[in-house]
């Protein structure tokens, strides 16, 4: 099969999808091996930014952050693999005051629900801008990756009616407090979240004729998984248990937008959910019981474990790793940190394949790598992320943005363009200084090595690095060539993965 793959038959290369799977596996393995060998070779070589960080440690940084930065490289060099992981797991101990003071300008983030309704379009924009700043600048990077994960898992499209106000509360009071806590607490908070109840139509679900929308996605997407062993009858029974779960309306004054159990809409007859009998007249307790049943269900442990493995390890995680993470869920009552320690253990991550960055990850990792100063994220939010197809809180269906290379890999043009535009003519609200990034490097060789360190921790693919040096020549490289070199490195194949 390999003989049909040749560079000059570019027109037919893409058609050989047959052998793609095997070729990919082989190629992936070769590239990983090559990258490590190259990194060692590079460490022996010249350049003022000798890379001394072990390859596996770099991989950990790439996996648990939104992209390498010189700051994180410094931390991992100092702490080593285990120390760095524990540092990020203890997120509240990390000083994030610089970011917090930046976020102080977004008043809506701290408001009560009733106050948000009066603000029109501002809260949704504030939340999105804050999300971009947090992803790019927060010191609590693993925490940020978990917030992103749960934001997708409990996806809410922010422009579904009142969600444009209530998602601010959901992000603040549901996702963020529990992102590295216990899954049962997170689940319970989400089921009580007015934004979720609005988004999936539970607010109009009434006894006699319940709305199945939320009940189905609660089972399929949030807890058991589509093959988790529930039936259509279970969907209806869960919907009945949740009838009356809504939020206060505009007549409630300062309670507007808060969770509210409307007993008159609740189906108080007996129910049976996943084999468990729920007695009549339980009122709100029916729903509380459903949360307990779902959180304790082995399918939930396994489903959450498998999604976490896909997020941090790769798209096809080994069954044994999923089993171990699910077992930790069962042992610890759904302790998210305990599961992450299993998935991110040194021996597990050592075997993990490369992952393809989603567009948001790509954009943020570019900002981080070149130490971009973000004076305003508005243009990133309104122009760049929409062009790339991944603005936070804008995925309409309830399954969250896909985490799959098949889905995202085809749209490369905007991924290349964000780097190109950042360096020429620039992106509004974002500034980058090549002079300060270069720290005196002024030859093709030293500039390329400096870029290699900043963007890849020294692990840029050898052919990409060689091509970058070639692009910068002749010495001394012109200002245009230098800014192009940064942009091309951001657009290079190496930078598309983490």
């Amino acid at each position: 099969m390999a003989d049909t793959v040749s560079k000059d038959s570019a027109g037919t290369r893409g058609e050989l999808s047959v052998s793609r799977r095997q070729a990919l596996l082989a190629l992936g393995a070769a590239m990983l091996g090559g990258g490590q060998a190259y990194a060692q070779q590079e460490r022996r070589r010249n350049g003022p930014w000798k890379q001394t960080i072990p390859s596996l440690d770099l991989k950990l940084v790439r996996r648990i952050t939104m992209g390498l930065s010189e700051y994180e490289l410094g931390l991992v060099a100092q702490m080593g693999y285990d120390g760095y992981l524990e540092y990020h797991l203890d997120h509240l101990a990390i000083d994030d005051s610089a970011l917090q003071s930046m976020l102080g300008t977004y008043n809506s983030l701290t408001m009560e629900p009733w106050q948000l309704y009066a603000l029109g379009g501002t809260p949704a924009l504030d939340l999105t801008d804050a999300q971009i700043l947090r992803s790019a600048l927060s010191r609590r990077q693993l925490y940020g990756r978990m917030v992103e994960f749960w934001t997708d898992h409990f996806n809410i499209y922010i422009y579904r009616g009142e969600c444009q106000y209530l998602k601010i509360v959901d992000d603040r009071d549901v996702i963020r407090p529990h992102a590295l806590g216990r899954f049962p607490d997170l689940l319970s908070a989400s089921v009580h979240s007015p934004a979720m109840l609005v988004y999936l139509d539970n607010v109009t679900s009434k006894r006699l004729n319940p709305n199945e929308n939320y009940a189905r996605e609660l089972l399929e997407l949030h807890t058991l998984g589509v093959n988790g062993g529930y039936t259509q009858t279970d969907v209806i029974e869960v919907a009945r248990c949740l009838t009356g779960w809504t939020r206060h309306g505009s007549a409630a004054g300062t309670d507007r937008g808060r969770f509210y159990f409307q007993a008159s809409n609740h189906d108080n007859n007996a129910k049976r959910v996943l084999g468990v009998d729920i007695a009549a007249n339980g009122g709100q307790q029916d729903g509380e019981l459903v949360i307990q049943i779902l959180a304790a269900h082995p399918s939930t442990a396994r489903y959450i474990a498998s999604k976490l493995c896909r997020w941090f390890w790769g798209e096809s995680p080994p069954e044994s790793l999923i089993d171990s993470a699910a077992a930790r869920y069962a042992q610890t009552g759904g302790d998210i940190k305990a599961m992450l320690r299993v998935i991110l253990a040194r021996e597990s991550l050592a075997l993990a394949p490369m992952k393809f960055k989603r567009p948001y990850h790509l954009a943020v990792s570019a900002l981080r790598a070149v130490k971009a100063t973000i004076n305003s994220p508005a243009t990133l939010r309104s122009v760049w992320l929409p062009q790339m197809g991944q603005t936070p809180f804008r995925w309409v269906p309830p399954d969250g943005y896909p985490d799959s290379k098949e889905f995202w890999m085809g749209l490369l043009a905007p991924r290349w363009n964000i780097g190109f535009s950042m360096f020429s003519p620039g992106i509004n609200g974002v500034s980058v200084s090549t002079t300060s990034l270069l720290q005196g490097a002024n030859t093709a060789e030293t500039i390329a090595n400096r870029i290699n360190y900043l963007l890849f921790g020294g692990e840029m693919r050898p052919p990409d690095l060689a091509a970058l040096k070639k692009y910068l020549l002749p010495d001394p490289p012109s200002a245009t060539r230098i800014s192009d070199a940064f942009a091309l490195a951001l657009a290079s194949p190496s930078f598309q993965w983490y």
Partner: protein
Amino acid sequence: MNPEDICCSEYRNLSRRQFINTSSRAALFLASAPSWLPKVAFATTPGIQRDVIISVYLRGGSDGLTMCVPYADPDYYAARPTLAIQPPGPDPGDAIDLDGFFGFPPAMASLVEAFQNGDLAIVHATGSVDPSRSHFDAQRYMEVGKPADPEVNSGWLARHLLTVPPMSDSPLRGISLSYGMQATLSGAPKSIPIPNLDAFGLTGNNSTMQSRKSWLDEAYAWADMALSAAANDTQRAIDLLEQINFANYQPAGGAVYPSNSFGVGMKSVAALLKADVGVEAVHLDLGGWDTHAAQGVLSGAMASLMQTLSSTLGAFHADMFATSNTNFIVVVVSEFGRVVAQNGSEGTDHGHGNCMMLLGGGVNGGTVYRDWPGLAMEQRFQERDLAITIDHRDILAEVVAKRLANPNLPVVFPDYVPTFRGVVEG
């Protein structure tokens, strides 16, 4: 045997054929071309007459009982006390009769002409026989073209492209008009997602554009194979699409497309087809059909979606037929229909059977094809949903065989023997 293995050996045999440059055709094309057309022409494969296929996916599970109303079935009215479209009559909210049994709701009026002209066919009580009521499983199995098989990953339309010789040596055979590759086209050769045909290019310093493009070509030649193919397709698509002036495209036949993204998307597809640059398949989505609450069949959420769908396809029909370019077929599907009985939120939950639509010059239109199962409780799928009496693969397979000139149906729809219903000519 893995179906992907079959299709590839199939393709390798086919791809050995020689493509001949039909220069006289190209010259004619350039002489008569309006200004927005590109100054390019590709060698075509002689003897191949195929429709360009436009696959439209209604994400969310469209309510087929509203899109094509079975007004002569009394059980429909019993199940939909406040969400039914009334039988044809004098009121502007009444159904528009199609065949004495089915009718369009007012919001679908823009497609009546195409139906009456015989260019639009509807198939009812159809869909994917996979029983899942999960959006995501149902979409997946419909798009890969095989129910309940998690092992098949490529889309049915991708496997079609893989098993026919290209219509020309165009660098771009398939486009998913979206930010990510939609599953229907996933794995297709020379195919990428392009969200906006009118704005697909590279930015950055103009003076180094060509050297940066070359640098990327070289770097991506060494990349992971799928990524390398995507990069190459991207660069060649940019070169191609930059030559078409989509912004100045003037629709023919007085066609007016809606200004929303679906309307603008189909308008750009019309320009693309008329430019004749060798694109063979386009996929686009119209989302928002998951109408669990406040469905709004006369005015409101669903009416507005139907309006967008019908006025866009109506404009596309007028636009394309006015220039005699009828070698296209539009196929409209959705993952499932909705439950027969409405819920307490003035909406409908996930169901099973649905309707689908075909539009094009080769369609045996003016007919609602069906084997109507009825809507009484005992006639429903699981005593709940419209039953499926026509597997949607029967319809798609007939389109693939007759309009797309592809005999490799066992690869496109693995482990299925379709029954043709006469929905298209050929």
